[in-house]
Each structure stands twice: as C-alpha cells, then as structure tokens.
C-alpha cells in the first residue's frame, strides 16, 4: 500500500494520504485519498489506480455520495476540493467556466456581484458544481430555466484511461459533434471525472415574489394546477409541499421580473391559486430536498394530483410519516422519509409507488438511503435503453474503474 501512496503523492503533489473513517463512501471502505489540482493530475492519479486495480470515486464536497448504490469497491477517493474557483467569467456573455470542485455557494456569490446567477438550485447545502452536474441535482428554478443538462454548455473530463477530453464550448450555440456534456451530466461519476464545467448564466431578477396557498387535500389542487399552467401569468417556478400522510397541500409559485410587472403577475397568480398570499421571501421549505431517505417520483403533469394522493395513501397504509415536495409544473416530486424508516417499509412503498408512476408514465427511484436499506433493493427501477447504457459504459470504462456498481443496472 505504501508504494501506491508514494505513486499517488507523485501524481498529486498537493497531497495524498491513507483514507480514514470519514472518507468511507456510502459505507464502503476506502484505502487512499488524493487531492489533484488539475486534469493532468487527475489523469496521473487514475493511472496509479488502474495499475493497482483500485476503483475510483470522485468527491466534491461529499454531499451526495450516498446517491445511487454504494460502489462495489472504492479504493481511491479523488477529492476535488483543491480544484475550486472560476477560470473564466465574461459577464457580458453570461457564461462562466469553473473548476469542478467549486462550491455552488461560492459561485453564486461571485456571480451575484455582476447581477447574474447559475439558475441551478443548491438542493443539498454545500454542493459543488461538479457534484450537481454529476448527479443532475436541481430544484424549483428548473421550471423556467431547465434542468442542469440544459444549463451546461461544455466540460472537460478525464476518462478512466487518462485521456483528457473537452466537450461542447463556451458559446451558447454549438452543434459541432456529439453533445457529450449531456452524456456526462447525471452519469454519477461512472464515465469520467469532471474537471471543468462551462455554464450558461441568467440575469438576477430585480424582484422575486412568492405566492403561497394551502389546500385541504390533493383533490382541490388539480384544478388549481391546471388553471395556473394555462394562465398567462407564467410563474418562474411552481412547487408543491405536503406533510404525509394527510397534511394540507401547500402550493407556492415564484414570480420573477421587474418590480411593477412582477407584482401585477403575482396578483394574477394569487387569484389563480384562489387566494394566495404574496411574500418577498420563500417558504422555509423552498428548494430543500426532503429526506434523509428520499424517493424521487417523475410523472406527466396531469397526474401530479393523483400521484400525490397515492403517495399519501401508500404512506398512510404503512404508517409512515414524511414529506412530499417538488416541482408541480415540471413533473418531479420527492418523497422524504425519516432516517430510521424500516427497510421493509421502504421496499413495500417503492413497489406501491412504482405501480402509481407507471400510470403516470414516470419513474420511482430511491434517490438516497442508508447503505443497509439499499442492499438488495431495486433502487433504480426499470430503465429504458439500459442495454445501450451498458455498452456506453463498456466503451468508456471497460475496466469498471469508476464507481463500479453505483449506477443503473449495476453500471
């Protein structure tokens, strides 16, 4: 082992060390941690890992290492905290290029100085840009600004074989070659290590208004949602939150724009919500991913009320308490459950929810849960195109060096 460490220290002069308890990846022991500062150093570290058959997990702030399955092996953690900072920012272009380990909050601060933002919500506090892209994690703003995949213009990745490749570019319009940035976004670190990211930015609005209204149950929400989606008030985000099993349903719409017009639009939204309250500040739950155990549900828009009702019933039947929350205008809901929720109950719930989402033409995945809970559970559910995904993995990472077993179908 010490020989490997010496090699790693040579690959990553800023630091490499034996791993400790805190470095475990979702319950899996880690042998070594290295701190690369650049793509070539990542490549050098990967070469060491390949030579010594160590599986590699890239880590930003480590806030989402428990998403997906625990890796089968995790000999080496590549900690990207030394790869932080803005590389290039031309505010007039509304484009920024950052190192992958940059915390989203640092980036937000830098951008706000120029009246701009990333328009990707930090749904797990402490997240880095690389982590958000690797998992595709985003929140309420996706309603108007799109998901993470829609905000990424380009990236630099290091392939498991050490080749450093660039995809996309720093201009907002580009169809040259395959859009590999889409493939890497949401790939959970199983295809390559992201080292640089280029994002499209959005201006910060002058006014932000939140319009909230409570409803006794999901039956009342259906007509309101469809009226709102049809209205010309076009809110920038539309979130739903409910304490399960049978709390009231809160809807909250975000209206952003110029001061006067935003107020007028907020009033229209308030009317559509049949008596919503307008506030300049967000409800406490806004943009927070419920958990710590989290099931992600996706659905067509028209099935949101039914799915919310079915989630409530399923929780009630199992005697579970939790929180259902998500983007009602997009078709993504998250069901958060307490840490101590029993494995058997989660398994039954997941089966129930899979039945429900089939009718809603969506998917139910167990986004995060303690490793012991996930063991033996089908956390991803059915995956269309899985065969092709295996082939993609096989081409990029034939030695299964990167986070083996973490992703769909054991990828």
């Amino acid at each position: 082992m010490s020989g490997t460490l010496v090699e790693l220290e040579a690959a990553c002069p800023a630091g490499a060390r034996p791993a400790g308890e805190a470095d475990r990846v979702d319950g899996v022991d880690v042998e070594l941690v290295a701190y690369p500062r650049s793509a070539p150093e990542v490549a050098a570290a990967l070469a060491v890992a390949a030579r010594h058959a160590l599986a590699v997990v890239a880590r930003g702030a480590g806030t989402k290492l428990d998403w997906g399955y625990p890796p089968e092996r995790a000999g080496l953690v590549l900690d990207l905290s030394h790869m932080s900072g803005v590389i290039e920012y031309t505010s007039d272009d509304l484009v920024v290029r950052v190192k992958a380990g940059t915390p989203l909050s640092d980036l937000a601060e830098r951008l706000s100085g120029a009246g701009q933002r990333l328009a990707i919500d930090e749904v797990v506090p402490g997240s880095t840009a690389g982590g958000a892209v690797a998992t595709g994690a985003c929140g309420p703003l996706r309603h108007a600004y799109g998901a993470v995949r829609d905000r990424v213009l380009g990236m630099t990745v290091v392939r498991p074989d050490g080749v450093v490749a660039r995809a996309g570019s720093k201009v907002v319009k580009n169809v040259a070659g395959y859009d590999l940035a889409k493939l890497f976004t949401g790939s959970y670190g199983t295809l390559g290590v992201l080292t640089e990211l280029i994002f499209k930015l959005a201006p910060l609005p002058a006014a932000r208004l939140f319009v909230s209204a409570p409803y006794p149950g999901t039956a009342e929400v259906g007509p309101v949602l469809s009226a709102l989606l049809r209205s010309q008030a076009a809110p920038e985000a539309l979130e739903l939150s409910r304490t399960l099993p049978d709390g009231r349903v809160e809807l909250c719409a975000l209206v952003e724009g110029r001061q006067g017009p935003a107020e007028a639009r907020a009033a229209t939204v308030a009317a559509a919500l049949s008596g919503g309250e307008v506030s300049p500040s967000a409800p406490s739950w806004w943009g927070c991913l419920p958990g710590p155990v989290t099931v992600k549900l996706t659905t067509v828009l028209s099935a949101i009320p039914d799915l919310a009702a079915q989630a409530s019933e399923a929780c009630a039947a199992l005697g579970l308490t939790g929180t259902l929350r998500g983007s009602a205008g997009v078709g993504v809901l998250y069901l958060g459950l307490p840490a101590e929720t029993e494995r058997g109950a989660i398994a039954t719930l997941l089966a129930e929810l899979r039945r429900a989402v089939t009718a809603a033409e969506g998917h139910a995945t167990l986004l995060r849960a303690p490793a012991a809970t996930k063991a033996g559970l089908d956390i991803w559910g059915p995956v269309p195109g899985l065969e092709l995904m295996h082939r993609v993995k096989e081409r990029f990472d034939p030695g299964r060096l990167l986070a083996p077993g973490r992703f769909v179908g054991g990828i």
Partner: protein
Amino acid sequence: MTDPVELATYECDGLTNFRARPAVAVLARSAEEVETTVRVCARLGVPFVARGSGTGLSGGAVPVSDGVLVVTAKMRSVLSVRPDDRRAVVEPGVTNIDVSRAAAPYGLFYAPDPSSQQVCSVGGNVAENSGGAHCLKYGFTTNHVTGLEVVTPEGERVELGGMAPDTPGYDLVGAFVGSEGTLGVATRVTVRLLPLPEAVQTMLAAFADMDSAGRAVSAVIAAGLVPSAIEMMDALAISAVEKAVRCGYPAGAGAVLIVELDGPRGEVEPGLAEARRICEEEGAFEVRVAAGDAERAAIWRGRKAAFAAMGRLSPSYIVQDGVVPRSSLAEVLHDVAALSEQAGIKVANVFHAGDGNLHPLVLFDDQAEGEEPRAEELAEAILGLCIARGGSVTGEHGVGLHKLAAMEKMFSADDLATMLLLRSAFDPDGICNPGKAVPAPRLCGEPPRPRHGAHPLQEAGVGEIF
C-alpha cells in the same frame, strides 16, 4: 425504390455540392418498416443513411454510394397532442410547423422554429439539434425533446427517455439529439409544448455601421434582457433584400437589428423600451416598433428573404455558419470585413446576433477563374476566427460531410476519439451514416477503444495518428 431517375432526387441535401446515389431508397411508412430495413442492412453489413426532408445544409443526409437510404418523410402522423401534459408525440417525418399547428388549438406551440420549418422534418431537427430565430430565449431541439423511439444501427427498436422528465440512467436522449443520424433512426419523437406567449413585440433598429450594431447586441445581452430573437443584417444584405422584396428598411443603414421580445405583457413592454434605449445609446439613428402583426411581418420580411435574395448580388455564394462569444461580435465582424477586403471577395452578413451565430454569405462568381477556391478559403478563414475566440465551427447547420476538417481544428484528437467511443457503443459495425459528423482517425481499421499508452502501431513504428 431503385429506379435511377427517381433515386436522383435523393442524391443530395440542401448543400448540393456533395452527391452520391444510393442503391435503394426505402420510403418507410412505419417504425416496423424502418426496423426491418435496418435489420437487413445490419445483417448484410450494408451502410444506411436516414433522410427526412433533405433540407440539411451540411451534407448529413447524402447517401452512401450503393448503400440504403431510409427516408422517414412519409411517416407524417401527429400521434397525440396532450395539452394537460404539455407534450406531443409525433412521427419523424412530421414537418416542424405541423407540430405547432397541431398544438395551436390548445394555446400551445413547439418552440424550435428553424427558418426551414415549413419543410424540414422533426426527425431531421432531432438529428441536427436544430434551432431557429427564437432559440436565444427558448433553446434548441435538445431542450424540447423528452423521449425518442429509436431503431439502433443493429436494428433494435428502443425507447429512450419518455413523457416524464429525468428518466433514470444516462441521458441518451441528450446524446442522440444532434448526432446527425449516426446513432440510429428516430421513429417517434416526444416533444415539450409551451403556452403561446401573451405578448410579442418587435423592433427594427437602424445603425450607421456594423460596429455600433454589434455593440448594441452585446449591450442588450449584458443588460440581462432575454429577447426571444436578435437578428442582424449588414448593408450588403439589406441592399439585396431591398431589391428582392422591397422591405423598406431605413435608407442609409449600415446595419439593422431586429429585436423581438415575448412573454407576459407587463414584462415585454418595459423590456422593449430598455432594448430601444440601449440601441439608441449605441447610435441607432432610427427605431421602428411594430404596432401589430402586419407590421411585425413587414419587419421580418426582409430578414426571411435574405438568403433567397443573395442571387441578386452574386451568381453564387457560400453560407458559412460559425459561432463567437457575444461580447466579441463587433470585433469579429471587423475581422470578417478585413478578411473580405484582403481576399477581394464580398461578404454579406445576415445572422442570429443574439447568440453570436454568424452566417456570413461569401459571394463569388463561379464563372470567374479562381474565385471559387478563394471564396472557400475566405469561408474557412472565418471559421478560424470563430475557433480563435473559443467559439464553434457550427451553430446550427451541423458537421455532416462539410465540416469534418473544421472539427479537427476545433477539437483535439482526444476530444474526437471520445466522441467516437459513443458512436461505437451505438454502432459497433460503423454502418449508420458512416463518415459524417465526427471525423474518424486516419489510422483506420481499428474500432475506437479506450487508450492504454501509445497506440500499438505507433509503438511499433508502423503508423502515426495525424
């Protein structure tokens, strides 16, 4: 179809300089027929090429000589419009405009609107990741497709993505869109629909020169305005359209901008006023705001007629397509003008200024000795300007056959090899639109594989990748 005369129709796409005649063209009427055709190709190892409406501008749909052409243009059904889910499901041969037509009764529309939308197919749009005049605000095809049914190059019919967002697994829809028909044939497409905006406002601003118009574009973007479109035309382009359609743009303009905003009325009106103020600050000497649909159409008429009008200026022309950062527009236009002067070849500019997507029209006389190669050189040099500024060699027309060499300038060999890993995952036998979109390394006969050290042939001193 195998009749040589009939097949001649399918020899090329919208870029007529590349031609090849297929052995067979299959006019598929259903996904099953596409599947059967591709299966046969896969079994026999015969290369095939998908074709929609053939309006592509990079030679993407040019057949492989003596291969099979799978034409999806007859698959023209809008399968469903689901207003409550804001989705439509269509066959690949449906024209772009027909999606919005089908959605209109519900107050919805399909956002990507390439200028060829009356003719081009959704399948072609998916393959090219097409944008349109309004992609500045709405994005491209990739931002509006949630699901695909695809016949893979091995003849398997698979679903990718779906009706709901965030299908688990790799984003293969994202990988397929923009892959220029090299990863399979799309046989069904699920698209997002959006509510028609409440208000649309359009303004024409005339400037003395391109510099000030270019600066105005950068300033509008920098101010945080998000117009749905900002289009620009220079004096030469204006003179051509005046001759062709008499659109009555302000006399003496060295450049005009068309700026359009849409959305909630309360946001659009002050937004337009701000854009107007910026244009005036940057030196616009006349600004016209369209009072209604008729005036809006009049403003757009010149822009829409621009390409067709070039015939009035020159017997032949090359349409270039490249992208630069928006903050460098004025400088780059300067450089283009300088290159044009040096070469003694005129360049007219008509383009999507808001996203920095240049479409310089390089004008030449194909009868004049030596002009064509000089024009090609100039068009090439303009792409060089784009690459030098970190831009792209194509913003919307794709690589096809036309831009393979340019790809090698924009991307490193490693970048390209990485793209080929994706291709070989979908098409291990290399029979699906071979030789397009991503240049293959010249060291042939080796399927792309991850690299471990130097290539064995290099090590043996037998071959060099160049």
